[in-house]
């Protein structure tokens, strides 16, 4: 089963049927879904904003017939309200993970707020997916501090540091077994080196769909397939690993 570990949705697009058709055309059967509106993470202090967005992504998952695996998002500096919203989303709406974009929200990963959020994610057994690249606030080394402090929480590195910081993502993934690397945006050679040198149970395919249009998801998949890693590794990266991590598609995380 091919599962895209990094995609964005809103209700309008999912109701049109176009987005589901796009990823099905690429052979993707399920996809992790984040809200589209991450830019507005700039504004803490309006926790109800996140509740509205999180209810929307939960509804996206329902409308998709279970093909979209919903992740919630919050502004961690909303403190107790952010934690309450995560707990509500997971317990009431079937949210399966937390998506954070610190460079949009302009918050650090080394704060007490992020520590409490990471602890809660571990308690609820949901992973934290960070947008992770060169930008301030979201480098692999910054996220690694959380991974070290919270070994019971899984941290997904979206873009794995992108094409500047991926060697650091590689280094921290080799140190911390609770770090999972996502391939979206990485160049072909970087993907090859990560697969050769890191635990292939902790590398997942992601596209950042629908950014760049439907062909972008094809391009992201082909960068993996072009390597001809072999059927077992390809199966894990293209869906098996994220299925196991999230307990979807019949997979169980042992």
């Amino acid at each position, binding site marked *: 089963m091919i599962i895209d570990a990094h995609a964005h949705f809103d209700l309008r697009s999912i109701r049109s049927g176009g987005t589901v058709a796009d990823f099905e055309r690429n052979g993707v059967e399920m996809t992790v879904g984040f809200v589209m509106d991450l830019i507005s993470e700039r504004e803490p202090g309006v926790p109800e904003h996140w509740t509205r967005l999180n209810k929307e992504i939960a509804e996206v998952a329902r409308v998709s017939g279970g093909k979209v695996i919903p992740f919630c998002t919050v502004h961690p500096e909303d403190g107790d309200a952010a934690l309450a919203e995560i707990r509500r989303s997971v317990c009431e709406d079937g949210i399966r993970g937390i998506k954070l974009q610190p460079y949009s929200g302009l918050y650090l990963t080394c704060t007490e707020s992020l520590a409490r959020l990471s602890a809660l994610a571990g308690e609820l057994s949901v992973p934290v997916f960070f947008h992770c690249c060169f930008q301030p606030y979201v480098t692999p080394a910054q996220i690694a501090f959380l991974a070290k402090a919270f070994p019971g929480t899984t941290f997904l590195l979206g873009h794995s540091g992108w*094409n500047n910081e991926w060697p650091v993502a590689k280094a921290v993934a080799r140190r911390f077994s609770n770090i999972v690397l996502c391939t979206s945006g990485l160049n072909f*050679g970087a993907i090859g080196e990560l697969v050769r040198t890191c635990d292939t149970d902790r590398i997942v395919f992601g596209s950042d769909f629908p950014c760049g249009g439907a062909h972008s998801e094809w391009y992201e998949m*082909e960068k993996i397939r072009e390597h001809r890693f072999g059927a077992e590794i390809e199966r894990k990266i293209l869906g098996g690993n994220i299925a196991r991590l999230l307990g979807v598609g019949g997979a169980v995380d042992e």
Partner: protein
Amino acid sequence: MSRIIDAHVHIGSGRRKNQTPEQLLGAMDALGVDMAVICPVDEQIAVDNVQGNDLVIDAVHRYPDRLVGLAVANPWYGQRALAELERALAAGLRGLKINASLQGHWVDDEMMDPLIDLVRQYNGHVYVHSGTPDYSMPFEICELADRHPQVNFIMGHSGNIDVFWVHALEAGKKPRLQNVFFDPSHISFLDEIKDFVENLGVDKVIFASDSPAGSMRLELEKLRMLGYGEDILSAITGGNMERILGLSPGR
């Protein structure tokens, strides 16, 4: 129909990139790529410039109809860099490859100027890695290009080593520098490539793969998926580069 020319490929044996000229030619043959512009790899870009340039000189002498070479010269070597660049250009290389983040300087540092001026004297072009803060960013590359209007610059990856293709696009517009061209290698959001074509002009976008860090097949295929007609596609995949290299148009 224009040749298909890959404007940026590495040969040599480095920490991360490994490719022989023969492996490269095999890939080109399989994909119908007529020519490639080659440069050294990794540590040979950073420090072992002479070793890297010798490999490239040897390759272009052995395959003169298929390979064009760019030299490397770390500007921190000062006069030695200038002498090495002159040696490589005199031996038949066609310009300079800059990776300021590997070489450890700001891309628009004034110590680059003598090297660029030497490239101008040899009627060559410059290929510049872009998208790695702080050293090698689009606006700074355009500043360097603006100081050297007689030299053509190709902005490698159009800032997309991270999310800086927006910088590249805006830097290309304001002011619209006639001597800066954009390579869309590694751009994952394929619609962004259309933004370059439609905002900067079809004559400004140039196919390059960054092989072996990029897949030549995928970088070529993604351009074909943009939905452009043969005229536009042909300009991007080779026509524009033919002009930069001073080749007569067509196969």
